[in-house]
């Protein structure tokens, strides 16, 4: 990131290669719309370049990146005026890893569909904490920096999000 700040274009390519996948999947699961997630991915990395002067090495790059992504995603949700629950019906998330057993694969897909529906019903605040913890692999301290909260509040939110999912999805037996 420091190299990018000094105008080294190759550093941007490295940052993109390293982080675009986890960032895109965070956005996709948060927004649940592929086109919007791709649009946001592009916006986030453009902002990384445009605001490179404001980056301080005291924060990890991932924290900074996800803070930008989270703020843009919330802005987009606000602008869209469409509530998250009424977003398009396309299933963009429930894609399980291939399983050799077809029956188990069908089961897994069904469970993931339920999970996706349950995720849609979480509040955006719960959803972002859950996604940042489970998929972006951020620590509580990092998540707290991203969402502008405290590690204790992150812990409580994550617990509530998981409990809510558990209640909605039920037992898989």
């Amino acid at each position, binding site marked *: 990131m420091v190299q990018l700040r000094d*105008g080294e*274009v190759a550093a*941007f*390519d490295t940052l*993109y290669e390293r982080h*675009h*996948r*986890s960032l*895109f*999947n965070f956005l*996709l*699961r948060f927004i649940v719309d592929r086109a919007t*997630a*791709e649009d946001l*991915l*592009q916006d986030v*990395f*453009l902002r990384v*370049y*445009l605001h490179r002067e404001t980056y301080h090495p005291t924060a990890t790059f991932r924290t900074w990146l996800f803070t930008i992504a989270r703020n843009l995603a919330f802005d987009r949700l606000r602008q869209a005026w469409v509530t998250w629950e009424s977003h398009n019906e396309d299933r963009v*998330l*429930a*894609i*399980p*890893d291939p399983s050799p057993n077809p029956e188990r694969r069908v089961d*897994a897909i069904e*469970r*993931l569909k339920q*999970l996706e529906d349950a995720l849609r019903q979480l509040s955006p605040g719960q959803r972002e904490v*859950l996604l940042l*913890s*489970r*998929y972006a692999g951020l*620590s*509580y301290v990092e998540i707290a920096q991203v969402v502008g909260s405290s590690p204790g509040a992150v*812990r*409580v939110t*994550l*617990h509530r*999000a*998981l*409990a809510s*999912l*558990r209640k909605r*999805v039920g*037992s*898989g037996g």
Partner: protein
Amino acid sequence: MECRQASEIFASYLSDELAPTERGELLTHLDTCPSCRAELAGLKEMWILLGQWRDVEPHPAIGRRLHRQVRWLVARDAFLSLKGWTPSLVPAALGVLLSVGLSFLMPYDALIEICRRAVGGLVPEPGVFLMAGLTYGLLPLAMVMWLSGRRRPVLWRMKSPLLFLVLISPYAIFQCLHFPGPALAGFLMGLSFGAFLGGVAVGQRWGNRMTCER
């Protein structure tokens, strides 16, 4: 540890955020509390299920478009800021040295005479001067850019030829003072065209090849 306290840290346990002592206390409590074990098993099931979502890649065109946009922004910033010109000064100065050195080995008048003999009658007189000027811009800049061998955006590559022209103009004009007006214009146009051709197109093409071979 009580059930309420244990329940509050289940998520931390799953996301591996517990301190070793807290973790030990939780495991001890779980050994003796079937209801907490059941609750944790349910949450763990969700945690594992969440992990079964496969990551997907964005469309490759997104990355390509983004890289193009950023390269353009980088080049624009480098072109507009004074600091961005410093790296281009060295190739430009080297180009000037080579061009001046070439003019010592082969003075402007001598090359113009050779060009005149080669194409005499086929092109108008200013065209002969243009050809000669082209040589003093093209060869030095192409050689310098080839030696630098770095892949740069077009806007960035235009800076060395521009600086080259600024630096060499006094010398070139002084050497050509005795030329008639159209001939002087032709020579300077050739010098400019050669510098841009060498610095932007030819030098970059060779430079790319060198970079790939490395």
